[in-house]
């Protein structure tokens, strides 16, 4: 984990309403593990007291990139930056996806929203090949399929309006795949997306006796474990529950750790 002021190398539209921000981060980039994130100090947003967290999309040698969507004032201010300007990062942060699962497991990636950005490094760095399931409202919400197919990973797409792939939820496609008994081998899930999707993936994993790594999205303060903003309700060893920091112990949790009941 380190603080780094980084130079913007590239900043452009990436499709599905997302923008790619690529920076030279010689300190942080080489350390990044799949599923980790960077905490970004957005310049010029001078009444903001918090950084903004973004998953690392790609990290190669001394550069890293994020994919983000403009949803509020921080991301809007980010979007106004140009190559040649600098931005402050803290990273890499959090516990990402473990890549050391048994070789016989088929990696199954499940993504919604920016989930594709959080999962790319999993596909790229896993020694085993797997497949990716992606969901969205409409064709124009489906982000970065090409990056996965370029790695030779097949992609299963679901859109709620049927404009791309199967009409329905990503879990429908996943269920079909699971139901068709195609899993000659045991699946291992890696998921990032809305809470409902994560919970659904976790339910299937627990029902099947499989492992599911879920990357949760919680509002963050410090990003390093100091402020206790970002907590997730987790099961405690004694059967009770406890608030656990998603910026430190997460953002990736095994589905059995999370206690979804009572969560909104």
């Amino acid at each position, binding site marked *: *984990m*380190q603080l780094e002021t980084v130079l913007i190398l590239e900043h452009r539209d990436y499709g599905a309403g997302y923008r790619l921000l690529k920076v030279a981060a010689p300190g942080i980039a080489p350390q990044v593990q799949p599923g980790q994130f960077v905490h970004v100090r957005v310049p010029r947003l001078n009444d*903001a*007291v918090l*950084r903004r967290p973004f998953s690392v999309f790609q990290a190669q040698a001394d550069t890293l990139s994020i994919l983000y969507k403009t949803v509020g004032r921080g991301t809007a201010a980010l979007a106004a930056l140009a190559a040649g300007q600098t931005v402050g990062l803290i990273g890499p942060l959090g516990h990402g996806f473990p890549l050391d699962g048994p070789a016989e497991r088929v990696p199954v990636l499940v993504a919604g929203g920016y989930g594709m950005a959080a999962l790319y490094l999993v596909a790229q760095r896993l020694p085993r090949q797997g497949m990716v399931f992606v969901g969205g409202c409409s064709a124009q919400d489906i982000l970065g399929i090409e990056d996965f197919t370029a790695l030779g990973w097949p992609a299963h797409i679901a859109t709620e309006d049927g404009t791309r792939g199967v009409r329905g939820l990503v879990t429908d496609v996943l269920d079909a795949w699971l139901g068709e008994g195609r899993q000659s081998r045991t699946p291992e899930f890696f998921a990032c997306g809305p809470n409902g999707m994560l919970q659904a993936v976790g339910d299937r994993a627990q029902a099947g006796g499989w492992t599911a790594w879920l990357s949760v999205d919680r509002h963050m*303060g410090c990003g*390093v474990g100091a*402020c206790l*903003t970002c907590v997730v309700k987790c099961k405690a060893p004694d059967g009770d529950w406890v608030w656990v920091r998603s910026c430190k112990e997460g953002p990736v949790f095994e589905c059995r750790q999370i206690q979804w009941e009572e969560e909104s």
Partner: protein
Amino acid sequence: MSLNSPDLSVNLGGVRMKNPVMVASGTFGYGPEYADLVDLNRLGALVVKGISLEPWRGNPPPRTVEVASGLINAIGLQNPGAEGFLRDYLPFLRQFDVPVIVNIWGRTVEEYAAVAERLSAADGLTALELNVSCPNVKEGRTAFGTNLPMFRRVLAAVRLKTRLPLIPKLAPDLSQIKAFAQAAEEEGADAISLINSIPALAIDIETRRPVLGNRTGGLSGPAIKPIALKLVWEAAQAVRIPIVGMGGIASAADAVEFIIAGASAVAIGTANFSEPTTALTVMDGLREYLIRHNLGTVKELVGALRC
């Protein structure tokens, strides 16, 4: 002592600090969280997150919300309890040459006394900061922070149980700050710190519910700086014990304002989240200010307001 290296050291009611810049309770964890980014040995003091006798879960999320130039928090004092702290964090903290001040709280006078007693028995802690002013635990603020007799009672009870320097942290009471500061001095406090975050509310207009899980929270950050500065100045006129000033400090200039208003030391809170090295840059900027103004010690600046 040459003119180029002014003396930044302060003795805060028995807490000997290399420099007057500390990090505020609840914004710097228990030490390890920021240790990769900030050399803890350089801090004037490290105040850890509020500790109670028993572990405490804290409030349901959302626990913070960003507002104009500020943050509202309602963490609710989640902490591992005194034993958990001593077991999991104290050994780490003892590796460093930095005064460790433990922020403590309880739901009753007895709990305050008990946690103070337990921590005082441990080796390696420098002082206790008494949080009677947290707006996020019902018991805290209502019972102790704004009720003068209760404030005195809890202070007296803790004073009996510890020889460590005792630093009550005042609630940001706009009309009675002098009375609370004087009561602290009379009950044997070695210093006082102020201000804690200010009770605040944010509403989600789409759901018509409070944004925070705990409904209300405490406002901190640059938004509260002018209010905090006023209260520190008032308190400084009321007591002789040293004051730790805080509330929205993000730059050396902010810290200098608090020192001029009467603070012997300052604490960096919310600013750590955006710039974890704020305490260090404040320290460097403070040194430059003293040099530029031909001051050999930071003590000469304390309370130097010209009115």
